[in-house]
C-alpha cells in the first residue's frame, strides 16, 4: 500500500500535467468536430464564421502560450528540484532587465497583432444593416421571443405576427430589431452569429446571414428570471424562392382572414410589469444605427 503510494507520489508530478495537457487537446479537438445544434464551431453564416475565425486566430497563440508556460513550469520542476535536502542554497539571482523587457514587449506586440483584426472586425460586424436587409421585429418577453414582419401586413396595416418559429431568407442580411417588453434578454442563434442583448428602452439591431436553408436553434442568453433556461427559439431559413413562397402564403392568409392580430407589445407575462403598466406606445421600429451587429 505505502509502496504504491510512494510510486504514485514520485511519478505523479511528472506525468499528471502532461496527461492533463494531452486530455485537453483531445477534448478540444473533439469539441471542434461535433455538429450539434448550437455549436459555435460549426457556423452557417457570415457573422458566425468570421467570429469563429477570429476565435481561432486568438486561440492557437493562446494555446501556444499555454504550452510554453505550463510546459516550462513542468520542465523546471523536474530539472531544478532539490536532490539533496542538505544542499546549500543556489546562486541568488535577483533579476535580469533585458529579460524583463523581452517578456513585457513580446506579449504586447503579440497582443496588438491580434488586436488589429479584432478592431477591424468590430467595425465590420458593427455596421448598420444593408439597405436591402430583410427586417424582422423581435419582441422578447419573459420567457419567449415573438416576431413580426413589417413587410407583411394585413388589410388593416398590422404586421404579420408570429409567436414562435420565424422564417428568414438565406443569402441575405436579416436585420433583427430587438425590443424588450420587460427585462434584459439576449438574442442568440449560435450557428448564425453571436448574441446581442435586448435592452428595454434601447432598440438594438442585430443582422445575421444564413448561408443555406436549415433549421437553427437559438436561445435567450441573458438571465431573465425563473424560466430563462427554456426561453428558446427555432428559426427556419428558407431559400429565397421558398421564402417568397412562404411570404405569399402568409400574405394570402392575412388577406383571407382579417382577424385582429395580437398587439405586439402585449406581454404574456403574468407578473405586472411597470413597462406594461405604462403601456409604452408600441415602439415605432426605427433603425438605430448606433447598435452593434454580430
Amino acid at each position, binding site marked *: 500500500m505505502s509502496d504504491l503510494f510512494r510510486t504514485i507520489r514520485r511519478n505523479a508530478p511528472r506525468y499528471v500535467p502532461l496527461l492533463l495537457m494531452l486530455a485537453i487537446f483531445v477534448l478540444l479537438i473533439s469539441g471542434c468536430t461535433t455538429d450539434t445544434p448550437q455549436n459555435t464551431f460549426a457556423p452557417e453564416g457570415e457573422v458566425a464564421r468570421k467570429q*469563429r475565425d477570429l476565435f481561432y486566430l486568438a486561440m492557437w497563440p*493562446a494555446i501556444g502560450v499555454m504550452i510554453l508556460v505550463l510546459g*516550462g513550469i513542468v520542465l523546471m520542476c523536474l530539472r531544478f528540484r532539490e536532490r539533496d535536502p542538505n544542499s546549500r*542554497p543556489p546562486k541568488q539571482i535577483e533579476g535580469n532587465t533585458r529579460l524583463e523587457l523581452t517578456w513585457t514587449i513580446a506579449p504586447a506586440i503579440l497582443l496588438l497583432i491580434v488586436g488589429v483584426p479584432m*478592431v477591424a472586425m468590430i467595425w465590420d460586424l458593427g455596421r448598420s444593416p444593408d439597405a436591402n436587409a430583410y427586417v424582422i421585429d423581435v419582441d422578447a418577453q419573459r420567457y419567449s421571443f415573438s416576431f413580426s414582419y413589417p413587410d407583411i401586413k394585413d388589410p388593416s396595416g398590422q404586421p404579420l405576427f408570429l409567436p414562435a418559429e420565424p422564417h428568414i431568407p438565406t443569402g441575405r442580411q436579416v436585420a433583427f430589431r430587438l425590443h424588450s417588453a420587460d427585462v434584459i434578454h439576449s438574442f442568440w442563434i449560435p450557428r448564425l452569429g453571436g448574441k446581442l442583448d435586448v435592452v428595454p428602452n434601447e432598440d438594438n439591431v442585430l443582422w445575421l446571414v444564413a448561408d443555406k436553408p436549415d433549421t437553427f436553434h437559438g436561445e435567450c442568453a441573458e438571465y431573465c428570471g425563473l424560466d430563462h*433556461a427554456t426561453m428558446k427559439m427555432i428559426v427556419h431559413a428558407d431559400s429565397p424562392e421558398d421564402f417568397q413562397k412562404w411570404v405569399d402564403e402568409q400574405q394570402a392568409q392575412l388577406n383571407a382572414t382579417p382577424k385582429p392580430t395580437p398587439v405586439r407589445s402585449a406581454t404574456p407575462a403574468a407578473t405586472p410589469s411597470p*413597462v406594461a403598466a405604462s403601456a409604452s406606445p408600441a415602439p415605432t421600429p426605427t433603425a438605430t444605427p448606433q447598435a452593434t451587429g454580430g
Partner: protein
Amino acid sequence: MATIAAPRTSPLAESLRNARQAAEHNPILSWFATVDHKRIGVLYGVSAFIFFCIGGCEALLMRAQLAGPNANVLTNDEFNRLFTMHGTTMVFLVVMPLSNAFFNLMVPLMIGSRDVAFPRLNAFSYWTFIAGALFLNASFFTRNIFSGDLGAPDGGWFGYAPLNLRAYTPGHGMDFWMLGIQILGIASLAGGFNFIVTILNMRAPGMTLFRMPVFIWMTLVTSFLIIFAMPVIAVALFELTFDRLFGANFFNPAAGANPLLWQHMFWLFGHPEVYILILPAFGIVSEILPVFARKPLFGYPFVVFSGIAIGFMSWGVWVHHMYTTGLGTVANSAFGISTILIAVPTGVKIFNWMGTLWGGSIRFKAPMMFAIGTVAMFTIGGLSGVLHSMVPSDYQQQDTYFVVAHFHYVLFGGAIFALFAGIYYWFPKFTGKFLNERLGHINFWLMLIGFNLTFFPMHISGLLGMPRRIYTYPSDYGWNLWNLLSSIGAFTIALSVLIFIINFLWSIRKGKPASADPWDGRTLEWTIPSPPPHYNFAEIPIVHSRDDFWHRKYQEDAQGNVVPVLAGAAHAPTLSGGDGHGADHDDHGGHGIHLPSPSFMPLIAALGFPFIATGLIYDYALVPVGVTLLVVGFYGWALEPAAEEEA
C-alpha cells in the same frame, strides 16, 4: 484618541472597564472583544472557510442537477437561487475575507509592527463582515424553507437591472442580497483604510517601500482598489434600495431609466473587484516561490510595478463585461484593446515567477505545490480571459459556460489555490505545528485533478453553445458528456476539501511541531516564535535590506557560493540598540509593551447594521434600534481609552 482617558470616571465607565478586563481573561468572551490582529485574522479565516464549504455545497447541488440532461434534482427556482448565492458567497464571503484573513495575520508581522494602525476598526471590520454574511444567508429563510421553499436572492451575482426590481423579482431574497452586500462593503472599506495606513505608517525602521515583501505590496494595491471600488457598488446598491423599497426610478425603464446604468456601475466596481480577489493571491505566491526555490524573487521591482499597473489598468476595462449590450463600435474597440493589454503586466508576473523557479533548488512541500499550481492554473484562466477580450468572438461566448470556465480558472485555480498555499505555508507560524505533508500532497493532487475535470470541460460546453444559468438542458445538444465530467470533477474537489479539513483538524492537535523558522524563510514573520506572542515582536526589528532575514542567515563567500552565517550571529538588530536580542530566546516577556485593550464597542456598533437592514425590509421599528446600537458603539469607541492606564 489613544491617550485621552475619559475626563471623569463615571460608574458606567467603571463597569465598562471591568467588563473589558473580564473579557480579556475569559476564553470565549475574549474572542468577542479581541482587537488583536492575529485573532481577528483567525476569525476571518475560519468564517471564510465555513462559507467556502457552504458555497461549495451549493455548487455541488447545482452540479448534481446538471450532471445529466432533464434532471430533476432541483427546480428552476431553486437552481436560480443557488447559483446566485453560490456566486455571491464565493466572491464576498470566501475569497475576499480569506484574503483579509491573511492581511490581518501577516501584514503586521511582515512589516515588523505590533499591530495594525486601528485595531478596533479592524475588529469592527470583522464583526460587520460576519453580520453582513449572516444577514445575507438568512435570506434562505425568507420563505418557509422547511416546506421546500428556498428563500434567497435569485437575480444572479451581478443582479442586473431591471430584473432586480420588485416588479420582476418580488421576493425578499433580493432585498437581503442588496442590503447584505452593502453591509459587507462597509466591512471591506474599514479593512481597506486600515491596511493602507498600516502599511504606509507602521513599518519597522529601515523597511522602506521597496524592501517590503511583495505580499505587502499586493495588499496595499488591493486595499486601494477596495477603497475606490466599494463606494461605486455602494451607490448602486443604495439606488437599488431606493428603487425597491421606496419607489424610486433609477433602473425603471417605464420612467425612462437606462438599465445599462446598473451594469456600468456594477462592473466599474466588478472589474477592480476581480483584481481585489486575485492580487492577494499573487502576493502569497510571490512569497512562497522564493522560499521553496531558495532563491530571491526574480525581478522584484517588476513584480511590484506590474501589480501597481494592474491596479491602475483595472479601472479601464469594465466594459468588457458589456460587449453584447450594444454600446457601439467605438466603446467596444477601446475597451477591447485596453482589456487585451492588461495581459501584459499579468504576464510579467507569470514570467518572473518562472524566473524564480529557474536555477532554484526547489523543495516540493505542500505550500509550494499549491503555489506552482496557482501559476499554472491561473495562466489557463488568464488566457481564456484574453480570448474573451476579443470582442467579436466574445459575442459568441458571453454568458456561456466558456465564461464560467474562465472565471473558475482564475478564481479557483488562481485565488483559492493560492489561499490554500498560504494556509499550508503559514499554518506552522500560527499553531507551532505543521499540517500533515502527505495529506497535503493528496489534497493537492486530488484538487488539481478534480478542478481541471470540473472546469476544463466547461470551455467545451460553452463553445458548444451552452448558456450559463440554465437549470436544465435537452439531451441532444452534445453537452451531456461535458457536464457529466464537470459534475464528477466537482465531487472530486469536495473530496479533496474534506481531506484538507481532516488534515487541519488532525494537525492542529497532533501535527509535527514546527520551529520559529520551519521553511528557512526570508521575511520578518519567521524571526519570531511560532506561535507569535501577542505583542509579536519583543523588540521592533531594524531592516537593512529586502529579504532581511535571509541575509542574516546566509552570506556569499569569496567564490560567490551561498553559505550559512555562523550560528549565533544571526540575530536581529533591534531598536533597543543591543544587537544580541534574538527572536527565539525572548528574555523580555513582553513586559511594558503597550497593547490596545479589548473592546466590545466594535461588536456593538456592527450589530446595528443587520437591525437596520432587517428593519428596512420588514418593520421600520427596528431601524431606530439599529441606529442606537451604531451610535452607542461609536460613542463608546471614541470615549473609552484605547489602552488601559498603566497599572
